[in-house]
């Protein structure tokens, strides 16, 4: 009987975990730049985001240095962004960043909260970041969206911000 309850409890835990993961993937991520940034000048394509966050493209077209900002490695939005854009989890990228450090390239600046991302993007020239699409405000503008782990150049018709 006890084994049966443990079995049922395990199933519940697995179901809850799966639901949580599914919920996480439902978060629409907005890729943001400062609201006063002329987006046309950046000539930014969705597939460049990968280069920018691997720090293989370091400059915008007019020679302005790109300053990408990340959330901390344990932040759920960082995990989702990293899987969607870079194809791997942050903890598996240690070797890559150690190698980049050896070549003088540091990983994107990292902050702990989405509000910190908004402030960094607002106050730092050449910066780019990402937040939950529900959290963007007048300080920033979205250039792309990540919907169900797919990059989109169109704003979603409806975002569930409950």
């Amino acid at each position, binding site marked *: 009987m006890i084994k049966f309850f443990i079995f049922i409890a395990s199933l519940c835990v697995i179901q809850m975990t799966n639901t949580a993961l599914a919920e996480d993937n439902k978060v629409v991520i907005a890729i943001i730049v400062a609201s006063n940034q002329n987006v046309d000048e950046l*000539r930014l*394509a969705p*597939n*460049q985001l*990968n*280069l920018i966050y*691997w720090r*293989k*493209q*370091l*400059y*915008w*077209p007019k*020679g*302005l*240095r790109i300053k990408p900002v990340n959330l901390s490695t344990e932040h759920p939005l960082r995990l989702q962004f990293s899987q969607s854009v870079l*194809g*791997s989890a942050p903890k*598996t990228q*240690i*070797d890559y960043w*150690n*190698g980049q*450090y*050896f*070549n*003088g390239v*540091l990983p994107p600046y990292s902050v702990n909260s989405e509000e910190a991302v908004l402030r960094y993007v607002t106050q730092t*020239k*050449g910066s780019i970041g990402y937040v939950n699409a529900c959290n963007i405000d007048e300080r920033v503008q979205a250039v792309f969206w990540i919907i169900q782990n797919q990059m989109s150049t169109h704003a979603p018709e409806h975002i569930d911000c409950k």
Partner: protein
Amino acid sequence: MAAERNMRKLFTFMMCSLALSATLCKPVLAEETVSWRDNFKLGGYSSAGIVLHRNQEAEAAINEISLILTWQNDSRLSFFGELELERPLAWNDDQKFNREERHFDLERLYFDYNVSEKINFRGGRFLTPNSRWNLLHASPLVWTSTRPMATSRLFPTGTNGAMVFGALPLLNGAFEYKLFGEIIEDQEEDDDFELQFEHVKGARFSYKNQSDIGISILSFRERGPNSASYRMLGLDFVTTLNEVEISGEAFQRFNTNNKDGGNGAYLQTAVPLNAVGLNNWYWLTRLETLKRPNEGSDERWLLGTTWRVKPTQLLKLEFTGGSGDQPESPRGFLASFAFLF
């Protein structure tokens, strides 16, 4: 006398390092104006280890202390420099600490200039970009204490010249190119074993996605008693399958008559030992081969384990065996500790 001179050099190096650190690591206050000095960053790496040779005296050494200095601000220009003090302290059974192996090596010194978002220009001394291992050879970045023979005995590891490089998005990954050529020949021989090259030029193309793959072509002349010109094709990859890292490189040189001018390859796996309760330990296996003109061919096998103490620290233990003697690839037991700072 020479020892005294070297000690003086070592002392000067350490004092300069400390002074530089004190200057560059000055805390920046929010209200301070950022000066050009604040855009410098200093880091580096070091390693120390022991080697129990199969046929020679046991030895221990601080293998290197390497300082990396970078400078960048919001302009298109940036600077990178790496100065290495090789084997500042070495001991063996026979000569104790009386070995004179320490020397400075300017590994890299270059300026980068961004021309456009896809084109950058590099001028100075840089690592020849024709081998993945060569580009990431620092001891805390590689799983083993020894370097695969093929990555040090077939081509120039450094080049004094110019490079055009950049990255482009391709499919869901990053395509990178590097085109380079030597302008100034290497003037100094680092040690008796180092091969000398000239007229170096080549290209490297790599693609990074779930796996990294690279292809490189190189043309150069090897100086020395058997001086000859070669062209070389190199292939390299690293991928992860079920958490097992598999990497390898292969090089084939051709002489001016399109005949075999030497070749080499290695294949390496790093298997995480989490399944047996050893978190952050990895089991290493490597097979290597090297063939140089007039020198025959050598083989190596390697079995070992590496503990990632921290993301920037590795403790390595390995047994190597095989045929032939190569200065940078001893046979026997090796243990070392390496860290980034």
